[in-house]
């Protein structure tokens, strides 16, 4: 799963897709995760990072991460949904 290359991010959490003109806003954790995905980090790497940096457990992270990534794909900010 990759964040599309032309997606623009601002430090305040503004997400812009120039190919569609759609814009979104995300909270600081969402922004951090998008940046980690842009840097090619795997889900496991991101889990390790987030559970180390914040007071959250692995299960809560997985639940929210799965939901967030699905949203990114649904909104066409990310591509490469895992194929069966």
């Amino acid at each position: 799963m990759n964040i599309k290359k032309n997606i623009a991010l601002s430090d305040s959490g503004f997400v812009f897709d120039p190919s569609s003109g759609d814009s979104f806003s995300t909270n600081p954790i969402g922004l951090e995760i998008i940046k980690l995905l842009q840097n090619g980090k795997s889900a496991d790497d991101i889990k390790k990072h987030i559970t180390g940096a914040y007071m959250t457990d692995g299960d809560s992270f997985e639940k929210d991460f799965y939901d967030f990534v699905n949203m990114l794909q649904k909104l066409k900010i990310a591509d490469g949904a895992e194929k069966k």
Partner: protein
Amino acid sequence: MPGSKIIFNGPDKTETDLKLAIENNSLIHIDHLDELYLIKELAVEMNKKPRVAIRVNMDTGVYPIWDRFGFNYENGQAWDAINKIMLNDKMELVGLHSHIGTFMLSPNAYGIAASKLSDLALGIKKKYKKNIQYLDLGGGFASKNTLKGSYLQGVDTSPTFDQYAEAISTAILNAGFVEDELPLLLLESGRSLIDEAGSLLGTVISNKRLSDGRRATIMDFGVNILFTSFWYDHKISPAQDFSQYTEDAVLYGPLCMNIDVIRENVTLPPLKRDDHVVVHTVGAYNMTQWMQFIAMRPAVVMIDMNEKAHVIRNRETLDSIESAEVMPEYLKKFKL
């Protein structure tokens, strides 16, 4: 409460009910002609003169007209019923009643109702030289809830008590009553007084993503507990600290039915399992219309003026349901 202070209203009054009301000298608000004739018969039988009012329905400029209750003003039914009572002398006509609708957002409609009731009262004075003791303008006053489909919030659109009072009192004062013969004004202000006094506390069961990408949050209360979610977009707040980040969500109840929707679209901070919420302005109509279905009904707690909590209704148990059930004898021996 002495029976003589009770107003007995509604279309379904049994003969037994009416006898008790006549015995207690209650104020009986007549809904239809069958009731009027039955009261007349009972008055003779009991050798009493019941105190009655008639319920009057009318066009106040709002839709729908609640013409299923009482006697119509415009087509003369109401005046006809008044004459039947006044000429018969078996009953004492003491009041006139209207109840023009529910959640009425137009104070002017009450002004029109007050004018029409006053017109009838003055007509009685002119023809029979009798003063009507009271005008009951009924209820239907809006609370600060937001009706479904309303573009603006209820707090911005619902009239104030002052606006209702201005419309009603102006109409009565301008109707032409002699000052010391002004009738007593009665109002039925239940919902508008108690709706904001009640809140529902609930808990998040789960979150999920719908097929179209919308966030859905499932709560432990649904239309079984919160009947008024069929009418209102209730204001809902998280009951713990939350950030400024929000997301639109659908709020579902716990029932296994597709109609169990609390809010079709609400903007809330993301809630997680076991988080709590407060549903505001639920004091009217919920505890009278909630249903025992799938989940047990919760306890009701009253917080007094000194902020002390009192349980005023216990949480429902299996026993609350089974205590009213009767097992036929032949089934008692049935073995699984």
